[in-house]
């Protein structure tokens, strides 16, 4: 019964020790008229065998399609050791390491994680994680407002090439505190943000500029020029990066002359399954000078009373349980278990292995782009260099094509019409190291067939503005 171990003898003796005659009596302080009635809306209990059957049926309904969607969540190979270790009860069923002496395992692991993330992003310090990549952008924006003391405007420039969901989450999370997000248009030829588009902010107070690399389209931004523009105008730079890509791309700490100020991103590619969107984790790293403006938990190494090294939560004076209304964030629980998985993943991969994951993902995406653009009516949407993800432009309506592919067990990418109506027939596709040449051929064959069965989009819709506003 509900994982409750009590025998009826236990219950009787416990009630006697308390000095009451029934469990019901323990609820006597709750006003009678408030007491709950039977919960008809909750079904009757299932045992483990029954719930196992139900869940297996539900899982079967979702199937295991061949997936070419990326857009912020990437299907990478996850070594068996990652989750075999992560789901050990000692990690899985522990809590926030408040009692340091009884939590050295989790604490040391976070310290190792902080070391890896700081190095991967080329920054000096890392926190112990945030909820996900989107909320990390929101927290970084609030942090930038605190850190950039010279700026009074609370104005954050966020290019339209940043993940649309990240932009929405940042707005929902930070606008209540008066932070304003202004969207910067991108070049529809290159698919990249241009420093030139920032010229209209010359002479104005800007708190921070967000730069996603590679951007939502998979296009590589000119991060050096954008970073230098921001710094020349008194703005901080918030880098939004893919951790796999960082194995081969210049880390935020080296962008431009001075490097980005805060680096954040979605940690999911580091050993975390797609799992319908979560749990994932957000990472956040920065310069040492801003460490006290960071949100979330931070672990430090110190000494015990006998002079031996040990690990503990530190800089807690920033946090809600100490500072209350003046805390840097309300965050308390974060994504510890996912950090565990990521730390194990990065240990197994090492720099050389992660580089190969990046190289293989990029090679597979190039192969995919090359196979699909051989089909009549399919071409690359942008001229800019891409990494590990790309936008195709189709001369047929995208939605029915994707539906036709899905009915054959292929998820062909993300239709961009909802977020970028100015991009007609745009499809964001991605392949990682998990896709074989056969998978790619299967997709190309299915798309060829699907396209031949559909009318071409009207010619009138082909015209595109030079630059989307």
């Amino acid at each position: 019964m509900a994982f409750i171990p009590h025998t009826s003898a236990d219950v009787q003796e416990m009630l006697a020790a308390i000095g009451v005659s029934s469990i019901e009596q323990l609820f006597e302080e709750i006003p009678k008229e408030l007491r709950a009635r039977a919960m008809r809306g909750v079904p009757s209990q299932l045992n483990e065998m029954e719930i196992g059957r139900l869940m297996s049926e539900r899982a079967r309904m979702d199937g295991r399609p061949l997936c070419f969607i990326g857009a912020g969540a990437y299907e990478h190979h996850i070594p068996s050791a990652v989750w075999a270790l992560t789901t050990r009860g000692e990690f899985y069923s522990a809590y926030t390491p408040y009692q340091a002496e009884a939590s050295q395992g989790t604490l040391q692991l976070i310290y190792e994680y902080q070391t890896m993330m700081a190095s991967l992003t080329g920054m000096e310090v890392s926190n112990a994680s945030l909820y996900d990549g989107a909320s990390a952008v929101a927290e970084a924006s609030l942090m930038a407002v605190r850190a950039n003391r010279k700026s009074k405007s609370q104005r954050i420039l966020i290019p339209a090439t940043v993940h649309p969901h990240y932009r929405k989450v940042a707005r929902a999370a930070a606008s209540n505190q008066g932070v304003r997000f202004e969207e910067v248009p991108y070049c529809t030829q290159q698919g990249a943000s241009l420093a030139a588009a920032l010229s209209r902010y010359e002479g104005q107070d800007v708190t921070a500029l967000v730069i996603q690399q590679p951007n939502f389209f998979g296009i590589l931004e000119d991060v050096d020029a954008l970073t230098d523009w921001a710094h020349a105008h008194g703005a901080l730079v918030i880098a939004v990066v893919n951790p796999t890509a960082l194995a081969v791309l210049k880390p935020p700490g080296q962008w431009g002359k001075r490097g980005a100020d805060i680096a954040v991103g979605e940690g999911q590619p580091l050993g975390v399954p797609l799992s319908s969107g979560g749990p994932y984790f957000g990472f956040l790293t920065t310069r040492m000078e801003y460490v006290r403006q960071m949100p979330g938990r931070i672990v430090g190494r110190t000494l015990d009373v006998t002079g031996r090294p040990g690990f503990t939560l530190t800089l807690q004076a920033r946090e809600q349980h100490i500072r209350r209304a003046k805390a840097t964030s309300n965050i308390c629980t974060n994504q510890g278990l996912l950090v565990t998985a990521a730390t194990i993943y990065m240990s197994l991969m090492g720099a050389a292995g992660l580089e190969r994951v990046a190289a293989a993902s990029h090679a597979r995406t190039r192969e995919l782009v090359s196979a699909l653009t051989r089909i009549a009516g399919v071409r690359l949407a942008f001229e800019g260099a891409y990494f590990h993800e790309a936008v195709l432009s189709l001369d047929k309506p995208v939605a029915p094509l994707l539906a036709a592919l899905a009915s054959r067990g292929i998820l062909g990418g993300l239709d961009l019409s909802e977020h970028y109506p100015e991009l007609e027939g745009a499809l964001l596709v991605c392949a990682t190291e998990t896709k074989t040449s056969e998978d790619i051929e299967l997709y190309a064959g299915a798309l060829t067939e699907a396209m031949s069965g559909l009318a071409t989009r009207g010619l009138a819709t082909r015209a595109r503005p030079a630059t989307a506003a």
Partner: protein
Amino acid sequence: MHSREKVIFEYSRPGRGATDQWPHEEGSALADLPEGIRRTGRPLLPEVSELDVVRHFTRLSQLNFSIDTHFYPLGSCTMKYNPKACNQYAMLPEFLGRHPLAPESHGQGFLACLYELQEMLREVTGMQGVALSPMAGAHGEFAGVAMIRAYHRSRGDLARNEIIVPEAAHGTNPATATMCGCVVREIPVDAQGDVDLEALRAAVGPQTAGIMLTNPSTLGVFERRIEEVARIVHAAGGLLYYDGANLNAILGKVRPGDMGFDVMHMNLHKTFSTPHGGGGPGAGAVGVGARLLPFLPIPLVGKSASPEGERYRWLAEQDLPQSIGRLSGFMGNAGVLLRAYIYMRMLGREGMSQVGEYATLNANYLLARLRQVGFEAAYPERRASHEFIITVKRQARELGVTAMDFAKRLLDQGFHAPTTYFPLLVPECLLIEPTETESRQTLDAFVAAMEQILSEAMQEPEHVTGAPHTMPVRRLDDVRAAKQLDLTWKPTAQS
């Protein structure tokens, strides 16, 4: 418990690696990338074998206390058993492999679970609508207060920006109010732990956005005049926010919606037994009454009839134009939601009320036994809820043995410490929450350990104040940790 484990980087040997995990491609596949965009130096990641990794992280895990290994009566955190089935069936390959942007045609099984979870949570809380996307309790709090604010604004009631919190509230409550652009007004509680109604009446006004309450409160007692509190706040035009941290106490016995609350969050990682994971992931679903339905965060899961039968679908901006918006990149901590769903289905309506009953039985039994062996209850006149507070202020004064010393000595006895020094209101306090999944025998063993520490405190107090003695490390220098920041391992700093 072995004593320590090297930092993983110390196992590194140049050229070693878990090569079976690596793809075949080499860097030459990147030849098309433009000049100047490539990384020049490799990041500091370990070069170790798969066996090195397995041993290292297994050993690290063994340095932890956890529910699976130890009684973990951490007050306010509801550290109950996390059934293995919840993990096993949430990790079926179809669920793990499902892309968050996969079409609804390839998600009917997953969406059905989420829809039913919304419905069950609605039922057990007495709320009208539930959104599952907030990713932790504090995240749910943010959603809740943001909805309160959006509600007032939608009515043109722009002056309401003050959130009232009792002084014993969780730190996340005032921090959340600030994040939502509100100001915080603290009010006292009376000697019996109930909200001071006079202070509340004086605090409310046209500036009141709402009040955030935990019930049972963080003091481990039920707020008896909750209906009066609701009347006062509602009459002033404010809304009531229920902090679901202590929902385990009343599950199946009384519902926040029936108490008059307009909005709440549920910590699924507490009440519905999803894992705490060493500090997350949590899940902080929010529930609302009718007035706040239009403001729920997106996405929600809806159900509609179609020729093929019932179809589940995402509800987003176009369905809820007044929504406070999107709070997560995709669908919150989806895998955690599946675990909560499985747990709730296993409890069923029969098990749901037993949770509150046996959590309360265990707490009251443990309190009675601890008082019997000489500990002082902070609220001796009150019934404990699912947790309770003892204070060792007498021992601190007379023997120099503090609540922290008791906590550390408990670790030597093989018990995780209760929450210490929270709530701030009670001096030298231990907040103890046994949960319903612990047997009477475990509780008795805990009482015996506490009794022994009490006698040690009288006979050899330095043995208690010097605790722990048997853990991988002794007490750590927190001041040094904060002043001489060592937040990343450096190749030169060998330990």
